[in-house]
């Protein structure tokens, strides 16, 4: 592959990763605002525990997912692919809380989706940082998101919206 091709390939790869993450975070924040508020709360109250829990749950699932080809039997491989995709989506959902938390702290007065978008842009840029970002922070972030999701137990949540978030002003 020519040199210019390599550069463009990596640029496209980073841009794609950034947009995919951002899209998931904003979309999840919009579709499930209460659950996202729960995740924000987990990041507020026990971020380290979320990371720890995510590392021991999401970690093995995702590593096995990456090594699906080495697993014996088609059924197991299919199951592992499904589990990996679900884990990844759950991690995306959980990190939507982290993105919103960052956005909330950056611009407390902005509307909710703007906070999610701004926080998402910042978090996305952190995750695509060469080497440190996609080598460590991305995985740690996704693991913490998975952990935050488990801690928040959104499937039985009765949480209210994020405290302190002003309702959008009526025109």
């Amino acid at each position, binding site marked *: 592959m020519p040199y210019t091709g390599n550069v463009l390939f990596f640029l496209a790869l980073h841009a794609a990763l950034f947009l995919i993450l951002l899209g998931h975070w904003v979309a999840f924040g919009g579709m499930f605002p209460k659950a996202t508020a729960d995740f924000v709360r987990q990041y*507020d109250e026990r971020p380290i525990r979320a*990371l720890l829990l995510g*590392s021991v749950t999401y970690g093995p699932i995702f590593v096995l997912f990456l090594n699906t080809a080495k697993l014996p039997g088609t059924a197991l491989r299919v199951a592992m692919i499904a589990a990996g995709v679900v884990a990844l989506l759950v991690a995306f959902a959980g990190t939507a809380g982290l993105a919103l938390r960052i956005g909330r702290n950056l611009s407390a007065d902005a509307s909710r989706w703007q906070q999610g978008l701004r926080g998402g842009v910042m978090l996305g840029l952190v995750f695509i940082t060469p080497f440190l970002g996609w080598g460590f922070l991305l*995985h740690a972030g996704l693991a913490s998101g998975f952990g935050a999701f488990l801690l928040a137990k959104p499937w039985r949540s009765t949480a209210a919206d994020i405290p302190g978030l002003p309702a959008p002003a009526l025109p």
Partner: protein
Amino acid sequence: MKKTSRREFVAASAGAVALSAAIFKSAQGWLTTMGQYAGVGVERTLHEPMTPPAGAEIDPVSHALNRITFGPGPGDHARVSAMGVKAFIEEQLGPEKIDNSLCDRATARFGDLWNEPLGEQYDVDSEALPPVLRQVTLLRAIYSERQFFEVMCEFWSDHFNIDPTKGDCRWTKPDDDAQVIRKHALGNFRGMLRASALSPAMLWYLDGRANVKRTPEEKPNENYARELMELHTLGVHGGYTQQDVMEVARCLTGWTVLARKDDGFSGNLLSPLKDRGVAVFRPEAHDDGAKRVLGSEIPAGLGEKDLDRVIEIVASHPSTARFVAHKLCARFIADEPPAAAVAAVAAEFAASAGDIKSMLRVLFATPEFSASGGVKFKRPFHFVVSALRATNASTSAERPVLSYLERMGHMPFRYPTPDGYPAAAIHWHATLLWRWKFALALANNRIGGTHIERFRLQRRIGSDAGLMATLLGRQPRAEESDAYLKSGDGLALLLASPAFQRC
């Protein structure tokens, strides 16, 4: 925020680091694979056991690996020993069942060369395709697990040699390689002969496209007809006459190639881009009278079917069986092959109507083949590929490697005359110096785009003696070990040694 204990913090950090490391390790395989698609880090995986040959002389396993592959890599001897030589030969005779993913990845970036319609190759710069074909051929020879198939492709490429520098061959040769050589390399000789006769590249190279008879005065072009009998089928002493050449030429009149511009032969058949370079039959340029070829009558009015009659006559001629058998035995047994082996293979050619696999099975079962270990002198291409395979080199097979082949006089697809590169050793002795230079450069990683992990290889095999045995196909003799240890550059010396030049 709730207070985080120190233990929790340390555990979470360790977990995140461990997770990242595990993901990185898992992704490494993916990255390697992606790199190989881009031509980076292509290298055969070393599998245990890597037990080197233990015999003092070349054993049947080393002999088979030397002859029916382009040379064994580390671990190949142990693998073939475990499965047995016969099973290995049968495995190699069914290449479609052999996983070839590494080679596929190494050559994937050149896929357009074969996947595009032939006519669209004309869009590519005229000088671009032959070098790519050479590079791909070298990559396949080094990395393909379908080694015998690649060896046969090389054999038939010489048999049906086409110099891509002539006319449109620079665009059509890759198609010939795919549709004639590779498609029929282990198929049926008759099928390959017919495909070759209608190959646009061959029609260009041997002027078949210019073989027309549009008026009673026009004389057919005999070039292809002569080479068809002299080089492709009966052989120069195969018993044909000048009259037979003229009659075959008459039979083949009218076959031409759709041209880029009106070349005076393809008539008004100029076509859209995608059809350019396609072989077509022009009835108005065909001599449709009665002919007589090698004593067989071909009635008038058969039109394009004349070609099939000619192929049938020349392919089923006893001289063709002997000629092809002789060439195969010269390639796989000895430069001057024993008459008994040639006769056995020729008989199988006749009995199987030119089935190439059947002939090769008979050839490999002859006692002459078994007794011929270490007597063949490697041609430069074989030498270079065997050195790269023996050292488990990672190479992009680009210009720096190909330039050594050029200096050794054996650049793939660059032989100007239709007889192809010679097989006999005597033709290759003059360029030994370049073999030694190549050995020295390879052993010291001084070839651009090519890299060997010399010490890792040595460590995996276990000892100097093991490395020597892996390269030589037998245990080294005392003087070889002595020279290896005292020379200061044992690996280069071994690759340049007389023993490594033979197979």
